[in-house]
């Protein structure tokens, strides 16, 4: 993964990208700056966790779908077993996805988790259990999204390879079949 955004095209969905980044940055900014303005921990906790939860929802349901075409969810089948589902768009539209969008998506996803870990270590050193609670909740939400989407992506690549090899095998067998019918 490179450090610079791919050049040569603009963001295809600027509004979605904006919202994708907005809530993450908002949660982090509020967490950092609130100590200067608010005395009450309750407001800090509620607003930060609320922004983090909104960000989780936006990433999972909106920007994941639109920026990178991936989606994951959990279902309970008739047996009462829990099944995790991972879904992606087909290969053609995946290839058509804007590179800049997906670069932004993945980079901000990983970066926020790293920053939250950093804050967690900070509050651990200072023995502030309250703030550790906030960081813990936000970190859990970020990591859940990362794990879900990374699983989508890995399986997407594997499925693409399988599909490619399957179509090649079938084309091959069909050409052999046609060769035999000619004979």
């Amino acid at each position, binding site marked *: 993964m490179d450090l610079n955004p791919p050049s040569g095209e603009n963001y295809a969905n600027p509004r979605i990208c904006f919202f994708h980044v907005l809530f993450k940055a908002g949660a982090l900014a509020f967490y950092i700056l609130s100590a200067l303005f608010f005395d009450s921990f309750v407001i800090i906790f509620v607003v930060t966790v609320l922004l983090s*939860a909104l960000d989780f929802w936006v990433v999972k349901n909106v920007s994941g779908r639109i920026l990178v075409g991936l989606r994951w969810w959990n*279902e*309970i089948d008739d047996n009462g077993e829990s*099944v995790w589902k991972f879904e992606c*768009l087909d290969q*053609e539209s995946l290839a058509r996805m804007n590179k800049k969008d997906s670069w932004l998506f993945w980079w901000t996803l990983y970066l926020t988790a790293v920053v939250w870990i950093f804050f967690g270590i900070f509050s651990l050193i200072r023995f502030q259990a*309250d703030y550790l*609670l906030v960081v813990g909740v936000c970190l859990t939400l970020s990591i859940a999204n990362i794990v879900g989407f990374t699983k989508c992506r890995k399986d997407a690549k594997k499925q693409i390879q399988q599909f490619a090899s399957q179509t090649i095998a079938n084309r091959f067998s069909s050409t052999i079949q046609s060769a035999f019918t000619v004979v």
Partner: protein
Amino acid sequence: MSHNERDTVPLNQSSQSDIDEIENLINYSGPTTVLPAQPSPPPTIPISSSPFIPSNLPPPSQKPVQPAVPPAIPINNNNNNRNVNNNNNNNQQLTGFGPAPNTLTEPVWDTVKRDLSRIVSNLKLVVFPNPFREDPGKALRDWDLWGPFFFIVFLGLVLSWSASVKKSEVFAVAFALLATGAVILTLNVLLLGGHIIFFQSLSLLGYCLFPLDVGALICMLKDNVILKIVVVCVTLAWSSWAAYPFISMAVNPRRKALALYPVLLMYVSVGFLIIAID
């Protein structure tokens, strides 16, 4: 569901569909057309084998190792049928996908509405009397954690507002108590050999907090001690009544009390917290 059914019927079906799939693929002459993102009628694929579903490919073949389960996921299909007319130009990149719907391409507002209606329906299922209560697995099929999240935060906020001193600590304690309590209670049920899904149980315990939320709100508005005790007792009984069938169905009948007692204990302690706050 007898074991025999699973062994005989689905195996024939899946092998037949495999043959059809392969025939279809062989008979394609040109490059495969871009199929619209299908809501693949998912054969439920357990997590150990590949759970991946690419949207336009025919569903991957059943692996005969796992017992085949009849594909019945009504939720997705309902949503996709509703979204047939909504898959319009909300997203320029994906307009090549024709009329077939998929929640992958639905407008954002639909997602919001779907989630909100799910919260409301889960709440109604859990807290109010309804015919599904005897079958807990079916009732909270569509678990979600947003409802519990809002209820826990609301309860913490109300308790914090009611407190005249140490507001922040009250909130933090209430939140931590409820969150870790829910996790520990779930682990308790699982360790007692119960059959319940982790997130489903968390979701349930969160939704059962709704009566206590209402009680705490009333107690905050009216500061009479007798009224508080009455209200808390009523809402506590309501919460316990809501949680009872799910927990008791999940475990062995001889261990019902072991699973239920901690749940009741937690709700009673929350009730005391509501009464004792001044």
